[in-house]
């Protein structure tokens, strides 16, 4: 069943294209134009994710955010026309998971919604393993044998991608799409850079190489031959 998304936004025009865009992507969409009815809808028909405008008539967005958060662990994405830091911090403090400043790119909004839904999936923290390498999706920490390896956000995503597709050649395009979230048209050495850092971290104590280059194709995670 497709995810249910609740949009609370007082501007009709924005609400309309958001509803159309999200429906086009296959989500079930509920809409509310003020905080009161939004909270009511969320109670009657619990959504999988809430897109919330911060400037609302009646109960303001921050308060709505706080009450939604008190009601359960539903992911909340804030939309704001103000890009002042205090607003953003306040929103995140009130329990929002992410924010976007208007005007936003629809593609980016959809990407973030996907990411939030993915993260919110009831999948319990999981430990992915390959050979002596393991990755905890809860703590986002990798280890090789007994050695703990800390990763940056992108390094984690890249390694997770490899661990979820072991022994499978991943093309550059696929890596770009899954890790960076868009089709990267230009030529860039960014993937090589991240592969290099990952290898450095994974092989810091002269362990065997796990991520191999497949010339002309991409990269693959496989046992050392």
């Amino acid at each position, binding site marked *: 069943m497709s995810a249910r998304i609740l949009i609370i936004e007082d501007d009709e025009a924005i609400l309309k294209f958001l509803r159309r865009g999200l429906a*086009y992507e296959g989500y079930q969409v509920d809409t509310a134009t003020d905080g009161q009815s939004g909270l009511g809808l969320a109670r009657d028909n619990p959504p999988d994710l809430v897109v919330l405008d911060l400037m609302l008539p009646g109960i303001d967005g921050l308060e709505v955010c706080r009450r939604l958060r008190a009601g359960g662990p539903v992911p909340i994405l804030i939309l704001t026309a103000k890009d002042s830091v205090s607003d953003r911090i306040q929103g995140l403090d009130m329990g929002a998971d992410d924010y976007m400043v208007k005007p936003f790119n*629809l593609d980016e909004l959809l990407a973030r919604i996907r990411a939030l839904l993915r993260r919110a999936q009831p999948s319990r923290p999981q430990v992915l393993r390959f050979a002596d390498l393991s990755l905890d999706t809860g703590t986002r920490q990798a280890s090789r044998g007994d050695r703990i390896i800390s990763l940056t956000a992108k390094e984690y995503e890249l390694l997770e991608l490899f661990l979820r597709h072991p022994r499978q050649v991943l093309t550059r395009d696929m890596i770009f799409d899954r890790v960076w979230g868009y089709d*990267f048209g230009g030529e860039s050495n960014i993937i090589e850079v991240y592969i290099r850092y990952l290898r450095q971290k994974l092989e810091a104590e002269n362990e065997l190489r796990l991520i191999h280059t497949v010339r002309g194709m991409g990269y693959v995670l496989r046992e050392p031959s």
Partner: protein
Amino acid sequence: MSLRARLALLSISIVGGVLLIFGVAVYLSVSITLTNQVDHTLEGAAAQIIRNSMADRVGVTLPELNLFADIYIQVWGTDGKLASSSLNIQGFDRPLDTDSLNSVKPVFRDVVIENTQLRVLTVPLIIRNSDRVIGVLQAASSLEMVQAIQEVLIWVLLIGAAISMTIIGLASWFSTGRALSPLETVTQTADQIVRADDLSRRIPYQGPPDEVGHLIMAFNQTLSRLENLFNTQRRFLADVGHELRTPLTVIRGNADLMRRMSGGDEESKESLDSIQSEVDRLTRMVGDLLFLAQAESGKLPLAHDLVELDTLILEVYNQMLVLAKDKLTMRVEEIDQVQVCGDKDRLKQVLVNLLANAIKYTPSGGEVRISLGKLEDQAKIVVSDNGPGIPAEDLPHIFERFYRGEKSRTRSRDGKGFGLGLSIAYWIVRNHGGKIEVTSKEQQGTSFTVWLPLEGESCKGKIFVD
């Protein structure tokens, strides 16, 4: 010269002038009085001698000449011989006053004899009831006393003048200093206001409502008015900015939606690209306006989060592709994994502004390159183009607010920018503890380099405010 010094000097010269006139008057009157006194004494002595002398056909019988201890007396005959003299100049056989010997009237003269200043009275001795001159009486008195008095007087006057001029000078220096010291405060505060860009400050003043008090009041009123004006302008900018964002969101969102729904129709794709790039430009302008409105107030907090610069650069690159698409090629060259501490949205604004600037000023067919690397403890972002370059005379000014080189303005076909992007980028980078550099060769291209300190310890959730 400072006002204070000028005032002190003025009072010194006025007092000096007055004292000079006064001193001359005193000196002259004292001198005249003293000389008169001497003359009087000499006249009295001469009169006494003449009264007591007896003259007849044969000659003159002189009375006792040694009546006065401090008056020298000589009597000369008509034959030019010394007839007699007082004891106190016994042995001195020249006339006391040679020039007046033949005078027919009593004459006073000052004469110097053996380094002594003398006052000499020459009286012709005339036989009573006839005109016959039978000799000359010369009576002289030393002027030593008069000179001593004059000398003392001159010293007293000079020293007195010097002392009073010094006192007046110091007094005026300190009193004007005191009177002007509030002005010093005014100047310092005004300086601080300018430097801190903080119009909410006022000049403190507790003194009396005198001229300086009025000046400070007027200055504070001007500040209030300026502050009001600035606040109004800032609020207006902020309101307009926020109001503009909603319609921009709608246009942008619908364009995105059409692109997703329309499939691969080239014609509509071109229109959508055009809509998107214009909306992006408007969005940038609104962002810059809001930024300025906030930065003007000096209250622009920056988040202090971990920012992955490489991801940010790719994000911005992706966003700017539409703008560059048909005009020039944009390439991400070397890129490294780099993390810094800072405000992601602001750093994005820096990159967007630099890229938008490069794309705008590079002619069709050109190339814009981006690279990211690390050098020691600094992140290094380079945005370079092969456009017309920036004239050397414009280079030092390009980060100044609203500055745009004359030439580039006429050269650019769509030179509708705000000219704010670079100064905003400069502000943001500087407030991240970094710096921004530019090198440019005319006809060869321009290259902007942004240096940012690499992520340090404990970088999370803090906000730093400029």
